[in-house]
């Protein structure tokens, strides 16, 4: 699984209230949620992400509320992958469960500039900054998480396991 995209950068402690403000949680349609992705911090984000981007963030990305509407909004806005220095645990699980890959990589913020081209090899945990020709190593995703992602998410993975039995 290799993912390509331009980097969009955010800092530390980006919480799910800014990723998807509560007033939009009445919406179930993922495309409606996507229109408001990151609105609390950057109202221009949804337009920026349309081309397909890789979100690069600092520590504790996705902290706060368990709202799954947050990773849904990011994924449908065009985020193909999140690379964070560390990721809040509920957000991490939610993102994987809906098929949005998240990798953790220390010092990624200082190694990537806004708009640079990145390539993420999920299986081997390798991140390439193609604009600078540099390589970084992320924490490797456990096999069962890679399986969830390759199925497209938790529900798809569960269905597959249930039909196998």
């Amino acid at each position, binding site marked *: 699984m290799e993912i390509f995209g331009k980097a969009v950068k955010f800092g530390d402690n980006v919480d799910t209230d800014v990723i998807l403000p*509560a007033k939009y949680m009445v919406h179930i349609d993922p495309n409606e949620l996507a229109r408001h992705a990151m609105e609390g911090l950057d109202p221009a984000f949804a337009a920026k992400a349309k081309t397909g981007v890789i979100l690069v963030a600092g520590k504790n990305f996705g902290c706060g509320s368990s709202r799954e509407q947050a990773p849904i909004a990011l994924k449908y806005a065009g985020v193909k992958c999140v690379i964070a220095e560390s990721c*809040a645990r509920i957000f991490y699980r939610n993102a994987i469960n809906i098929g949005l890959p998240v990798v953790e990589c220390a010092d990624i913020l200082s190694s990537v500039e806004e708009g640079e081209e990145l390539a993420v090899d999920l299986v081997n945990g390798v991140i390439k900054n193609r604009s600078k020709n540099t390589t970084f190593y992320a924490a490797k995703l456990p096999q*069962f998480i890679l399986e969830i992602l390759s199925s497209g998410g938790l529900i798809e993975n569960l269905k597959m396991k249930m039909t196998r039995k």
Partner: protein
Amino acid sequence: MNLTEKIVAKASGKREVVPKEIVDAKVDAIMVNDLTGPLAVEAFKKIGVAEVWDNKKIVIALDHLAPASSEKAAELHKIIRVFAEEQEIEGFYDVGEGVCHQIMVEKGYVAPGKLIVGADSHTCMYGAFGAFATGIGSTEAAAVFATGSIWLRVPETIKVNVEGKFKNLVTSKDLILHIIGEVGADGAIYKSVEFSGSTIGSISMDGRMTMCNMAVEMGAKNGIIEPDETTLSYLNLNHEALKNDLDASYEKVVEVDAADLEPKVACPHSVDNVKDVREVAGVEVNQAFIGSCTNGRIEDLRLAARILRGEKVNKGTRLLVIPASRKIYLQALREGLIEIFLEAGAVVCNPTCGPCLGGHMGILAAGEVCISSSNRNFIGRMGSPKANVYLASPATVAASAITGKITDPRDMEVK
């Protein structure tokens, strides 16, 4: 093993677990609410199983936008009601019954040694009873509905040991704010946080819930307090509860001196931006909120009523008082507290999360300031991204509502 490890081991059918291990744990109870439930219902339908694994272990509470604040909210509630009826879920609580976490405790779903998950981040609150309780998302909840189990990474545990007696009008809310300020918003990321020590032993169940409720604000997977006589008598249980082994191990131990503590406030826009109330005293407040799963219980209302009795809310400040459940509301009514609040000029609302998450019942305009007994103060949390939210104890909120400015409750005459 420590208590968290023991509970996870038991739920996974293992004799022993160690930190970092991945296990598959059976769930004793799961909760979803009106904002997380609809997505869970949709995801559950995609799995293709006809029935949930155990309809006696599921709780659904309509609490965040209760009663329905808009047509869209009403549609979400309808989705939940239909599902609850189809699946014959006894543990369905419609609008007005209470905030989801308070309901879990009041209706008997929480007990020492249980493994509980909830589609709401403050699920960690039930750790106050010596249960392992952690927040999850909607899709995860759907998978639990279908299978009754969940994968977990066994966390390392940080022990926070608290000794000493609180000063007058210093509460468990001030203590947990202090701890979050010291540990940091990501200081306990992925970890279990266990609160121990003589101070914790002296805190009531209401106060212990306040503390475990906010463990997530340090990034923790769960907060937990070893059960004792106070726990068992609150729940009317008389059997032995799971406790730490004598040789239980922890990643680190943080010592806190409670006697030294002053009333605290978490300043905009992060929960770990904690200062003494006196450092920010004088900031004008447009709204004051007493309520939420963090501080909407009877003790919180009693403390606020002590301060508000015979006083008036400042002209230009709205004070919202929201009991966390119907049961608490009734109790407050019978104790004469509701009358005190109304006479003081407060707005008393039905049990709901209300303004805590900027849902309804007290949204803020740009430039407004709210002092709140709830649990988060992120940008835009209570409405406008240009509003400021300060978090504090019910005593501090009540005092500030009277003066119209952030006020240390000890600087007011309290009978």
